[in-house]
């Protein structure tokens, strides 16, 4: 394993130290316990928006801390959800006195740790609401399983809820908005090559020369099925089909469309995939009203991409367009 690191056990902390030095104007990093918080937090009278999860998905979540998006993020170890004490500290730091929203990706570990933290916070009189993001169509849903994973919709929910909080919406309304975003968003991902977590030191799965994994998550897990490599046109069509059919997205819908890189896939390929996606949506009468192409929710050095579509109304589009100033997403300021 060759990486730009010093000690596999220190990657997360040392990377956060660099983040703090690079963006001192936007955020602060605390280490005991580890969390990242807006430089001007807490913003009194504003609902706090907090998220977190395992590291290795950068820029999500720490890179989305800043005005108009997250008030705080709690990065766990690589691919390991943060612990309740981190989440509790981040929540306290983000609490402007009118409550805090937890945006939680649906993974057993994340859900349980955020649950325990919420109990600790509520015991201290902080109003906490949690919304579980579960937009991954690659996972069959059922009452008897852990349910669908939270993936790309998390990025959109953090931006949109962050904007609503900035506008002064109250906790009830932001919680409802976050559920609405989650309910109207669907995603699917694929991998051309696995990733190598620093502490493990070897790829999380093996792929043959001509093989790809369809339906992967963001933790280096293998996908739902393995298949032969196919041209981008076919891969994009398969993913789009699965996403559109699931909600379903209908002719006339306006969407926020994201083509996300898993970490090691160059922009030249992501834009090529976006071109395919946009054409596919066009033929279905679905309009990509907003577009996002790049690395936003990654899986270390995995090669591949994911597609996320969010059915958006005027309100959601307006919140999307609101100013955002974070290391990972910035416009309007």
């Amino acid at each position, binding site marked *: 394993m060759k990486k730009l690191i010093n000690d596999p056990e220190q990657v997360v902390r040392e990377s956060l130290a660099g983040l703090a030095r690079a963006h001192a104007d936007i955020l602060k990093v605390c280490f005991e316990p580890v969390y990242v918080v807006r430089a001007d937090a807490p913003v009194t009278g504003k609902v706090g928006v907090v998220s977190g999860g*395992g590291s290795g998905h950068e820029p999500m979540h720490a890179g989305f801390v800043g005005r108009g998006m997250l008030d705080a993020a709690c990065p766990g170890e690589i691919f*390991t959800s943060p612990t309740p004490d981190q989440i509790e500290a981040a929540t306290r730091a983000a609490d402007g006195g009118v409550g805090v929203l937890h945006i939680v990706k649906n993974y057993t570990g994340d859900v349980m740790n955020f649950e325990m933290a919420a109990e600790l916070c509520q015991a201290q009189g902080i109003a906490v609401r949690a919304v579980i993001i579960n937009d991954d169509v690659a996972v069959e849903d059922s009452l008897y*399983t852990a349910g669908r994973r939270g993936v790309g919709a998390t990025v959109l929910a953090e931006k949109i809820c962050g904007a609503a909080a900035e506008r002064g919406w109250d906790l009830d309304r932001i919680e409802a908005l976050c559920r609405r975003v989650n309910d109207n968003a669907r995603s699917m991902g694929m991998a051309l090559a696995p990733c190598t977590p620093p502490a493990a030191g070897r790829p999380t799965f093996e792929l043959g020369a001509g093989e790809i994994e369809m339906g992967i998550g963001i*933790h280096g897990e293998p996908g739902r099925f393995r298949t032969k490599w196919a041209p981008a046109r076919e891969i994009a069509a398969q993913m789009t089909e699965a996403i559109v059919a699931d909600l379903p997205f209908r002719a006339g819908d306006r969407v926020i469309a994201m083509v996300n890189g898993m970490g090691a896939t160059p922009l030249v390929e992501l834009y090529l995939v976006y071109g395919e996606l946009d054409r596919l949506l066009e033929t279905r009468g679905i309009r990509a009203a907003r577009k996002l192409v790049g690395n936003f929710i990654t899986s270390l050095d995995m090669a591949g991409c994911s597609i996320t579509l969010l059915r958006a109304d005027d309100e959601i589009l307006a919140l999307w367009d609101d100013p955002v100033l974070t290391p990972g997403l910035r416009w309007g300021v």
Partner: protein
Amino acid sequence: MPAVGGGEIRAWLKALREVYAGNRDLLTALDAAIGDADHGINLDRGFTALITELDRNVPADPAAALRAAAVCLIRSVGGAAGPLYGTFFLRAAAASAGKTALEPPDVVAMFEAGVAGVAERGKAAAGDKTMLDALLPAVEAMRRALADGGGLGEVLEAGARAAEEGMKSTIPLVARKGRASYLGLRSAGHQDPGATSAWLLVRTAAAVWR
């Protein structure tokens, strides 16, 4: 051994640290197959932190030692295993509250309480391909061995054997909880990492307290 005091609990936890360090790669490899390749790393990190903690201030009675373990694991393990084993020790501590030494029935009660906590926290059931598939049969076997008049040694041995069978029984199962469930049918044919670490938990108690 007559009964399990604070010293024995600490001995168990220290032995667990060695065991998880020694099985770090095995547990991580099992997790790589159907999860995200960090289970061994998570437990190793947690129990290493726990030992440092235990050396800093030595808890006197069983409940104190178990609570220290709970708090430390919840703080340092993360992932699914953190809250799950954390809750296990939290409930185990509660069940042992006020006792300076645990007689065999108390030890079984401690495991029962801990496992009940895991089931509540994770909302999983037997056959979901989780650590519960090792833990539930283990407490069941301990109860039976106790009822049959077994001493601490027999009781724990029975628990360890049942945990091992339960662990092996996860191989053919299709996961319904945890990360492995995202693989659907592909999760079958692999031994669950958490069931494996759970078996080590019980087996180590049997080894240390025999």
